[in-house]
């Protein structure tokens, strides 16, 4: 037999199948992967440091740029951490609007997941379908806050502006459309034999491994660990809604995909309940013009689309945070990449990148 030599192949940071500017050094033995090392830092903007020289209110738009496909969830995490620090009570209507926006954003983000996954597997059609539907949500955001991605809508103490009737009506329309949408996706790719063959029993992460890596979000739930911060912490208005946490069994690529499909349905369920029980009242608490939280620190975590997003803020009693640390789920989840790729074929590495769903804005921060 011919002697083969191991060699290193660079995928990214400009490879079409790596998400954002992720570089992966794949060590290969023929076509088999021996190791995969993510290299990051291409999108580092120093957001944590930037926040130290800005007032609390000015920090919020920077959180949009962390996980830029689910900006609302980032806004929510930061604002809730500051509210905890400063002891601000958020009006009920604002809590409901926040939940609607955060869940809509979760669906939009899963659209990106589905779209890029199918695209990476060679089905550009799939991407167009997912992005068509994502556009419907971005249009909703455009109505409510005037921006499609960098929302900056959830603010410290509430939301930037009240939800208009137009927004609520169109959201209802979208929620009514969700079952039809999922049905179409299932017909289009879930049932596709090639798709299944490439997804099932590939890149398995067991329960133990997922826990050891400190993974969170849909990735850990696909491995069968019941860990959803919306259920555990019941932050904001989440305690008032009835929804299930879908779990996977095997922890393979297929489970990671199916979990997200099911989560879309669950998010739609939450939004429906929020729309039905939307209370009247103010959308913003009374927040002092110059916000000076007392000396101390606060940590708040939310269930971001990609997992546990936490903000740790230290205040020295001035108008600017002394230190902000962000616990970014994508960054932690990316640790599993090596394990997921080992022993797989090079073509499967692309699937593993897609189902782990890293977002470089969040990984690099």
């Amino acid at each position, binding site marked *: 037999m011919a002697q083969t030599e191991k060699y290193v192949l660079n995928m990214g940071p400009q490879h079409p199948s790596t998400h954002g500017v992720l570089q992966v050094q794949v060590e290969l033995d023929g076509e088999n992967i021996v190791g995969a090392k993510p290299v990051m830092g291409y999108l580092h903007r120093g957001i944590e440091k930037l926040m130290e020289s*800005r007032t609390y*209110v*000015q*920090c*919020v*738009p*920077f959180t*949009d*740029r962390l996980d830029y496909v689910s900006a609302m969830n980032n806004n929510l995490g930061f604002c809730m951490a500051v509210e905890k620090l400063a002891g601000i009570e958020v009006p009920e209507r604002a809590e409901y609007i926040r939940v609607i926006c955060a869940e809509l954003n979760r669906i939009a983000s899963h659209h990106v997941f589905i779209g890029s996954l199918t695209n990476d597997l060679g089905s550009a*059609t799939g991407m167009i379908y997912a992005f*068509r539907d994502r*556009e419907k949500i971005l249009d909703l955001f*455009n*109505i*409510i*806050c*005037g*921006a499609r991605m*960098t929302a*900056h809508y959830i603010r410290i103490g509430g939301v*930037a*502006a009240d939800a208009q009737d137009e927004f609520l009506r169109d959201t209802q329309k979208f929620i009514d459309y969700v079952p039809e949408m999922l049905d*179409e996706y299932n*017909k*289009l*790719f879930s*049932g*596709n*034999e*090639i*798709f*299944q063959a490439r997804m099932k029993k590939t890149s398995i992460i067991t329960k133990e491994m997922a826990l050891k890596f400190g993974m969170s979000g849909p990735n850990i739930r696909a491995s069968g660990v019941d860990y959803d911060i919306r259920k555990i912490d019941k932050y904001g208005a989440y305690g008032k809604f009835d929804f299930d946490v879908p779990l996977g069994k095997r922890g393979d690529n297929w489970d990671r995909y199916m979990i997200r499909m099911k989560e879309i349905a669950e998010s739609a369920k939450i939004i429906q309940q929020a729309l039905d029980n939307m209370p009247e009242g103010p959308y913003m608490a009374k927040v002092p013009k110059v916000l000076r939280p007392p000396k101390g620190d606060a940590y708040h975590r939310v269930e971001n689309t990609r997992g546990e997003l936490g903000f740790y803020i230290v205040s020295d009693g001035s108008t600017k945070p002394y230190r902000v640390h962000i616990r970014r789920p994508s960054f932690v989840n990316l640790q599993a990449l090596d394990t997921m790729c080992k022993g797989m074929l090079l073509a499967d590495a692309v699937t593993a990148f897609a189902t782990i769903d890293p977002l470089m804005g969040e990984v690099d921060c």
Partner: protein
Amino acid sequence: MWGKGLITGMKVTWGHWFGKKETVYYPEEKLPMTERFRGGHLAFDEEKCIGCKLCAIGCPNAALDLTVSVDENKKRHMESYVHQIGRCMYCDLCIEACPTKAISWDKNYEFASYFKEDMTYDALVEARNRRGNNE
């Protein structure tokens, strides 16, 4: 049966062949921008502005560079209102900070340019030009 899923998928695609189009023929056809749309240049209203600079103070990225002069009656006048689009992240904080609602978005999203210099403009000059054209 292997291949059934493929055929079902193909049916979905074919079903859309005759369906409604999701896109518009830009630039012949343009989508209207929403009421709250944040984007474009800042439309400045000289009459309303009191020269308090709250907008520039509220900006997280120092994208606004204002020059204000004070006349003999202690009245403040805006001399120039420079907006650097390259630094702006369209967060809306300047507009929300303005006590007299003197600035708003002009909602023109077609301002991509080849040169960096074109990304800096004086909103005051633009406002005066606009008024000159209207008169």
